């Protein structure tokens, strides 16, 4: 057991940072780019899938993004992390792909969900999730990007700002607007009544506890 942890430690020490690998690639060592691809391909594929919703197209987006990144490697100044830079390229590539294939997608607003008759709690939650996803798809691209990066990629606003190439406050504002829109939907849609009640009860309980503490 001790031996395994020692090996892991040695491996961790030997593991090069993204910036070191980038420098090696710039100096002509293409094999280092292979390591960068291995490190980031899963994350990029997940991110692309969130925008294009199709595995084949997402693979194209990832491939295109890595090639673009390789071509532009000299223009990467290292002000942001390599990952942020790569995500930035991927978001832009996915956006272009969406524009190219815009007519291929069905209108999300047409999706109808019949949850009125569903009593089961788990099913309600599932329906809520579906509605949420549909509403996320309807968000403007910048708001959606901020939401996706914050919620699913667990990024800080500073990192989101780097990826979106905008000021910190703009990234934050985009995220806030996205959340506000989703909240509005929750307040408006009757299907979410049961879930809202659940939240309502939770809030009442919390508010009373807060009042007691005061």
């Amino acid at each position, binding site marked *: 057991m001790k031996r395994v942890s020692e090996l892991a430690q040695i491996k961790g020490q030997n593991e090069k940072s993204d910036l070191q690998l980038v420098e090696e690639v710039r100096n002509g060592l*293409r094999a280092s780019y292979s390591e960068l691809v291995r490190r980031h391909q899963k994350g990029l594929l997940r991110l692309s899938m969130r925008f294009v919703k199709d595995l084949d197209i997402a693979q194209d987006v990832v*491939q295109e993004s890595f*090639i673009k990144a390789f071509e532009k490697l000299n223009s990467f100044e290292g002000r942001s992390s390599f990952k942020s830079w790569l995500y930035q390229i991927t978001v*832009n590539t996915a956006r272009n792909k969406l524009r190219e294939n815009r007519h291929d997608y069905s209108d999300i607003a047409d999706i109808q969900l019949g949850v009125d008759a569903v009593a089961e709690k788990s099913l309600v939650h599932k329906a809520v999730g*579906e509605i949420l996803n549909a509403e996320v798809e309807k968000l403007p691209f910048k708001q959606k990007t901020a939401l996706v990066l914050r919620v699913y990629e667990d990024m800080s606003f500073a990192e989101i700002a780097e990826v979106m190439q905008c000021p910190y406050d703009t990234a934050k504002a985009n995220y806030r607007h996205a959340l506000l829109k989703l909240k509005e939907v929750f307040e408006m849609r009757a299907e979410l009544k049961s879930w809202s009640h659940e939240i309502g009860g939770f809030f009442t309980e919390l508010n009373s506890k807060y009042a007691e503490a005061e």
Partner: protein
Amino acid sequence: MKTNQGMNERLKENQNPSWPEKPSEPHLKEALEEALLEKQLKQSENIELPMDEAFFDRLHDQIMAEVEKTEIKPTTRWSKTREFLERAVTHYRPSHYPRAAKSVKLALTGVVLTLGLGLELASFSIMSSTQKLQQQKQAELVQLEKQAQLVAEQALEKPEEWVEMAVQGSNAQDFYADVLAEKLTSEQLKDLKL
């Protein structure tokens, strides 16, 4: 996937929320609602990625095969400008700037109309001036022909007078007139008299 730096930044953000130290009820409610929404969004995640390593190995190989054919572009003094323009093109969506899009459309229409009208006016003025020039030239030609005819008639009627007139009318610079006068005064004048 998450970098340590990013995680630290996010922790800091959570420790220093945007609401005051003693949160009011609406602030607290808002924060909780947001947290619940985030949680719900995470739970409702419907992205299914392939889990087998073989898939990612294939993707990696495909990417690297393409990378092998690609070269890193050298940076030039225009690289940054080009990137900026590319970014502007990527991010620009007329629907996000309806006023700007409307003004651009109006401006473009104005430019096209002005250019069209200007071109038409210019072509019209060029055509009319060309026609005028042609008419002038024709009139001059007709006049010259008439004059030539008149002179020829006079010369045929009274060749001596005409020769004298031609000689008198010539000046020192008129080489042809001199030559003509010289020749006519000697031998040909006798012929003409005949």
